[in-house]
């Protein structure tokens, strides 16, 4: 392993990586200079399409793959140090336990390899099997386990050495909804214990429920990284649903609302425009299958959502969009929308709902995998020529 940094104790980061690069056989650029920091005690989610380099990055951290270049530390030890691994619990993707072992024997074996003393192994093994719901299966051979049970055992195995950092590669892969909830509870339990959890998953909704930090990896580079709040700051808004006054017709609401709000907002003279939604997050792309389009075989650009909306501005330049009976106000400050609500109520409008809204992880993900210039969804997989490649084409 090249470019290893020296040991620096007391870092705030459980994982602090810079310039991580890996090229397979000199051609396939799996990672192209990853910089990534994970705070101690955080639940960190790594997202990315298939072949983005997520598992390669995890395997580099776990010394399973040798990087071409890697600087940084994990738990204050240089990346690649075997000593660090005693403090890390790891659940590999598609792991295979020897099928001649029972669940308890598997935990004992891998615990011993992690230098966990025998007495501790016994007590902790039983405790963990209970935690993941396999207590009654302790003496059963792994060969009889279902996919979900193996996954549960894998999670117990990752916790066997009471790690400071838990790295889970697709922990809910093949697990039923009940199992997913159980795994989520385990993750929250770990978080409450102050453990750092590094999650690698495709299941965005799962990650959204537990992660406080995320990084999105696309074609070997980190496309976005930060807390959920940081990443969704631009997309935060309020949505207000109203019903017309008792004497008003619902179909005229969009036309009448600008007049009702004339005291608090200014609307353009052309009240009806064809415009994109105010969210910076584009909607999901259309299916790539089907006959070739005019883009010459490429996936057509992500269609920008078009609707008949009325655009205006509140005081301070806060944008407001009216579409039917709903309004979108481009702010996350509740103070800004109070005069609006007052004006609506004064005109007899019924406030059906006021909701703070922010982009979902899926929105963030789709934004990350979409070329901002062309609107094309980037192709899955690593970058063969070290550049971004759109789906079905070359950059």
């Amino acid at each position, binding site marked *: 392993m090249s470019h290893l940094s020296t040991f620096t104790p007391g870092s705030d980061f459980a994982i602090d990586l810079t310039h991580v690069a890996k090229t397979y056989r000199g051609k396939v650029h799996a990672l192209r200079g990853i910089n990534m920091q994970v705070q101690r005690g955080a639940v960190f989610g790594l997202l990315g399409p298939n072949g983005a380099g997520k598992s390669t990055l995890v395997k580099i951290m776990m010394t399973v793959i*040798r990087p071409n270049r890697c600087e940084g530390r994990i738990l204050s030890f240089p990346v690649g140090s075997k000593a660090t691994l005693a403090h890390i619990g790891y659940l590999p993707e*598609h*792991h*295979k336990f020897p099928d*001649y072992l029972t669940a308890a024997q598997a935990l004992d*074996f891998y615990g011993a390899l992690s230098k966990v003393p025998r007495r501790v192994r016994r007590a902790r093994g039983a405790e963990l099997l209970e935690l993941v719901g396999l207590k009654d299966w302790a003496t059963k051979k792994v060969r009889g386990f279902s996919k979900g049970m193996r996954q549960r055992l894998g999670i117990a195995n990752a916790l066997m050495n009471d790690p400071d950092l838990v790295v889970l590669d697709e922990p809910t892969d093949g697990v039923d909804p009940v199992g997913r909830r159980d795994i989520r509870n385990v993750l929250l339990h770990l978080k409450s214990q102050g453990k750092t959890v590094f999650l690698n998953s495709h299941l965005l909704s799962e990650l959204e429920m537990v992660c406080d930090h995320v990084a999105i990896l696309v074609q070997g580079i980190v496309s976005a990284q930060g807390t959920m709040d940081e990443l969704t700051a631009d997309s935060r808004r309020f949505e207000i649903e109203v019903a017309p006054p008792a004497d008003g017709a619902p179909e005229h609401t969009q036309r009448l609302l600008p007049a009702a709000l004339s005291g608090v907002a200014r609307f353009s003279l052309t009240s009806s425009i064809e415009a994109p939604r105010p969210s910076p997050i584009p909607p999901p792309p259309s299916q790539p299958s089907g006959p070739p389009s005019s883009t010459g075989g490429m996936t057509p650009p992500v269609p920008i959502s078009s609707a008949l909306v009325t655009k205006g501005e509140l005081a301070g330049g806060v944008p407001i969009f009216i579409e039917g009976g709903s309004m979108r106000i481009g702010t996350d400050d509740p103070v800004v929308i109070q005069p609006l609500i007052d004006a609506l109520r004064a005109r007899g409008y019924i406030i059906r709902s006021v909701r703070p809204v922010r982009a979902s992880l899926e929105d963030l993900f789709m934004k990350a995998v979409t070329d901002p210039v062309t609107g094309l969804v980037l192709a899955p997989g690593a970058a063969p020529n070290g550049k971004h490649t759109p789906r079905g084409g070359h950059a």
Partner: protein
Amino acid sequence: MIMQTLAIVRDAYRDLNAKKLFWLVLMLSGIVVGSFAAVGVNEKGLEVFVWTIESRIFNSRLFPPAVFYKLMFATLGINFWLAWIAAILALVSTAGIIPDFISSGSIELVLSRPIGRLRLFLTKCLAGLLFVTLQVGVFSLAAFLVIGIRGRAWEPGLFWAVPLTVCFFSYLFAICVLLGMVTRSTIASLLLTLLVWAGIFGLHTTESLFLLLKEHNQLKLETLAKQVDELQAEKAATPAETPTGTDAPRPAQATGAKPRGPLERRREQLEETRQNSGWIRRTHSILFLVKTALPKTTETKDLLSRKLFTAADLDRMRQDQKEPPPMNFGADDVRVDEREVQRRIERIINERSVGWVIGTSLLFELVLVGAAAFMFCRRDF
């Protein structure tokens, strides 16, 4: 460190324990040892259970029970059963160790532990020898007890079978380990190992054949030289027919008008044998050199006989042996003492040191395991 090593060894045992083949081989070993108990010798011949089969060859006058049982152990037990049948079954059982170990999903679970790759790999390889160690250990112990009780001969030398058989198997296992690393396939590594083993055996057989030819030729040379000397002396004692002496060719003989005399014929044979000797020696030297670089499976297991049998035991066995048939080709009428050829070959083989047999084989093994370990340490999984 010890905890991790013990864990790997314990895991290897659990792996064996779960394999039906391991218990099948152990059961068959029990049958082989059981057959030792069923067979014995008395003055008249072979004892099988309560019956006696009269034999001129196998009886207690020629073979005392202790020698008889040792002979059975070395030939049937080790050379036939453990070194062939059980070794093949052991290979079948252990060929998957490395391919399974490095398969995707398994390797991540072990490489992500605080243990160095080199130590992990070497410990895994050593643990792979557990199958044979347990098999031959149990077999030798059982044979020791049976021979002690049945033949009244407590022979601790039998336990030499354990290190020698493990050593013998480790050569094959090293080949299997390297092929397993390269191919990642159990079937491919097993079949290729068997192929290499057959190649090594073929080379050994060819080298043995050329050794026999070489020694036979050498003795023929000596015999012919002696005969030529005798004929010359005989000729010198009789009145000379020509003034030029016996060494000069007779004009009549040169033209073929008169049949050659025995002296000339022997001289021609001597010259021809000398010429043959040259290429036989060169071929044997090349074969021997190649063999030196390869593992010596047959010689390794034959070392047990050196440990078990005294010179007197070997002489006793030889007494009964019929003289090997003469190796005469075509119109060759030179009789060579084949027993002497056998004795010379035995001496040459016995003079091949344990260091040469085991040392060079282990060196070969070291190179193979080293190459496999290098690949393991450098590979991205």
